[in-house]
């Protein structure tokens, strides 16, 4: 199995992350997170706002996007490790992806001054998403 260790520079300190196959097994934070807060990260404009591109059948939110795939059954298709890696940096899996890298600060250009050096989401927000999305197991 392909084993890849990449180093990310976040807020000045080096954070190592381990990519195993097409997943990232280790949580970004050991804090306990709730699926309910993952739902908010998924929906809120000020947080992940993933509904910009993704839809969930069990979500009562108008105008869900369809630039990315419907995630209603993502918990059946992907492991938490795979979901985590796709949120952290989907380009590891698909270099041409349109999905933004939510936990990467390197190799970006012309980043808005107000966001330079920052990740889009925090470790906690991403772990909340991983829990929330792992529970999306609607059968087609």
């Amino acid at each position, binding site marked *: 199995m392909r084993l890849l260790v990449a180093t990310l520079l976040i807020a000045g300190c080096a954070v190592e992350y381990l990519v195993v196959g097409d997943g990232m097994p280790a949580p970004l934070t050991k804090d306990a997170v709730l699926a309910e807060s993952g739902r908010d990260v998924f929906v809120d404009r000020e947080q992940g*706002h993933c*509904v*910009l*591109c993704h839809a969930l059948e069990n979500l009562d939110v*108008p*105008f*869900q*996007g*369809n*630039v990315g795939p419907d995630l209603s059954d993502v918990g059946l298709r992907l492991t938490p490790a795979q979901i985590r890696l796709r949120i952290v940096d989907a*380009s590891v899996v698909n270099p041409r992806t*349109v999905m*933004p*890298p939510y936990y*990467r600060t390197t190799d*970006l*250009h*012309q*980043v*808005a*001054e107000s*966001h330079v050096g*920052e990740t*889009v989401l925090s470790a906690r927000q991403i772990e909340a998403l991983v829990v929330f999305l792992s529970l999306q197991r609607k059968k087609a």
Partner: protein
Amino acid sequence: MRAACIAFLLWASLASADEVISGYEFLTPETQALQDDDFANPGMLWVEEGGSLFAQQCADCHTQGSNGNLEGVAARYPAFDQDAQTLLNIEGRINRCREIHLQAEPLAYESKALLALSAYVANLSKGHAIDVDIDGAAQRYFTEGRDYFFRRKGQFNLACSQCHDDHWGRMLRGDRISQGHPNAFPGYRLEWQAMGSLHRRFQDCDAGIRAQPLALGSRRYRSLELYLAWRARGLIIEVPGVRR
């Protein structure tokens, strides 16, 4: 629901074709009606204002002779100007005329007067097909603009092309992504509640992917404007367009 179905059918039937489609086709019938009716189109206020400024300031040169008729001219802009030795868009052309012929200060980008004048001049080309020259001295601007269009940028690491070439027709939340053509601008955006330039629209798209927006009228935005005009060649100018 019906609108959504029609829009989807439009997208499904056109997605495979290599056709240039105006942003107009991605609007609701209500917004289209607003654009179509000169009396309801809020952008016409700027065009009218521009008409009176033009009559006061520009008509001395532009009523007769070879400079007289400005109909269709905007369809060939941006264009490289030998005198200025740079690429001028309509806003730049207007300020250049002020400088040389009126010995006047340039109007600020996005000022009421420059928006009004550029909307008036572009409106004289309404119905004309976009046809810009990208050869010779214009070529390096063209290349620069194309590079900007395909370059990933911002905290979201997205390129213009990823939305407007690869995913047009798809829904970004409540917005159906169009092909990103320039033919409506200067245009009235409901979100702005005002007329705005194409460069202001660029700034909004750049800010949307958390990229640092470039200055209005900057060289790279003018170059991007040339690339977009070439990409939209043959498309009919709609100024003043109405958009969300």
